[in-house]
């Protein structure tokens, strides 16, 4: 039990990258704001990033590749429930614990960003919740798709590494997208990466107006729909392939 708890703590601690970037950017913004980002904006942006990343985080790709390689997926297939439902249920069950651990940070965020946070506007709160839920779902589906590649190739995890590499730049994870060169920001808007991290954070700390946020939410759920179709199609094919693997 202690081992599991320490593991959880270690996992949270190893998500420290936004905090390092926060330190860096606040040092940069010490002598005047960067774009429309002052020191406080950077602090709330990266706190928001930290919170969203943990809330919407998922580890499906590692589980799935491991189960496919070792063949333990077979026992899941015997159960009368779709493995992806089971996977998503275990992951969602971890969310309340994450919320408890994160709650002090939310308080800090409220204290730093205060008036900027759109808490007084119920419509906005709804958008933020939908955006975070969508971010979780989108990442989950992407991980399912890449994880199922393990039925075909050895290095599915390397593929996911590539995805992570692209995501760290194009999602606003390292640098807020609006501080990137304009063309990068524009490209990022039509790619899925931003809708996993950058977009929920931007709505959470109030960088976007309600209208833009609502439009982006539509784009996010379009991506989700696309990913869902791809997941279902690929799942059937990969499963046939997996059966060939074990039998």
């Amino acid at each position: 039990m202690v081992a599991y708890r320490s593991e959880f703590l270690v996992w949270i601690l190893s998500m420290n990258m936004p905090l390092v970037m926060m330190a860096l950017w606040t040092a940069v913004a010490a002598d005047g704001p960067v774009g429309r980002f002052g020191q406080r904006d950077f602090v709330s942006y990266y706190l928001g990033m930290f919170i969203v990343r943990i809330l919407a985080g998922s580890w499906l790709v590692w589980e799935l590749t491991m189960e496919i390689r070792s063949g333990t997926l077979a026992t899941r297939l015997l159960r009368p429930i779709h493995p992806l439902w089971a996977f998503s249920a275990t992951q969602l069950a971890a969310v309340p614990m994450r919320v408890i651990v994160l709650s002090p940070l939310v308080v800090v965020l409220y204290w730093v960003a205060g008036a900027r946070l759109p808490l007084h506007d119920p419509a906005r709160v709804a958008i933020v919740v939908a955006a975070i839920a969508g971010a979780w779902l989108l990442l989950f589906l992407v991980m399912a798709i890449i994880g199922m590649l393990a039925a075909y190739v050895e290095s599915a995890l390397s593929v996911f590494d590539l995805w992570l590499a692209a995501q760290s730049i194009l999602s606003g994870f390292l640098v807020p997208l609006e501080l990137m060169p304009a063309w990068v920001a524009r490209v990022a808007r039509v790619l899925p990466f931003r809708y996993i991290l950058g977009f929920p954070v931007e709505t959470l700390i109030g960088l976007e107006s309600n209208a833009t946020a609502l439009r982006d939410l539509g784009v996010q759920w379009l991506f989700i729909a696309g990913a869902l179709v791809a997941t279902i199609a690929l799942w059937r094919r990969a499963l046939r392939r997996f059966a060939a693997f074990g039998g």
Partner: protein
Amino acid sequence: MKRVLRRYARLLAVQIRTSFTLAVQYRFDFFVEGALAVVWLAIALVPLAVVFARRTTVAGWSYPEALVVVGLFSMLKAVLDGGVMPSLNHVVDGIRKGTLDFILLKPADAQFLVSTARFEPWRILDFVGSIGIVCFAFHRLGRWPTAGHACTGLLLFSVALMLVYSLWILVVSLSFRVVKVDNLSYLFMSIFDAGRWPVHVFKGALRMLFTVVFPLALMTTYPAQALLGTLRGTHALLAGTGGLLFTAVARVVWQRSLRSYTSASS
């Protein structure tokens, strides 16, 4: 003494040969990982580029100067990925499965054996690329380090290598108690990542943390300052003794942890 040294040199040669054989066996995997390392290196440069597109200096560091730190950081990372991590991950596996017994039975120093168990030769490419970054930085700077500065830089860089290695030994020692270390190594790497920035970027408690507890400053910032000729003599001395002390502590902790190792069967 001389005979012992010769014996260990021969042992090292054998271990390296084994790793090369292994690496050639899984060529494709190593190639993919090598390519990924280059991608990550390039990505690491993005925030730097974005920051210095807006400012000429950050916390007293100009773009080329910060680039020297990044270069040294990725040199260290290459050594870590290629020479330290694979071996020590191997030990952690051994601790969990109990196969560490076989190593302990061998008539040579256990720490030496486990530390040289695996190498990833392809990481040499990363190392060369990182030297390229440092050279590019000095080229941008328009001046090269004097012989004295280069010597201090080299010396401090070897201290940095020892530090990285010792920290890793400490992590592995911990794995005798907490079995699940893959997460710990992930944590280690994520903190180590902050070393790509000059330590002066961090303020207050964070700077203390990165200087004394997890001495990132000693690993990248000080060697870089030594090369740039901006490091104070007292700092260099402190870094040197600190590094040696850390290594000694790691050795003692390792030996103590080894005593509490009970193999997987018991």
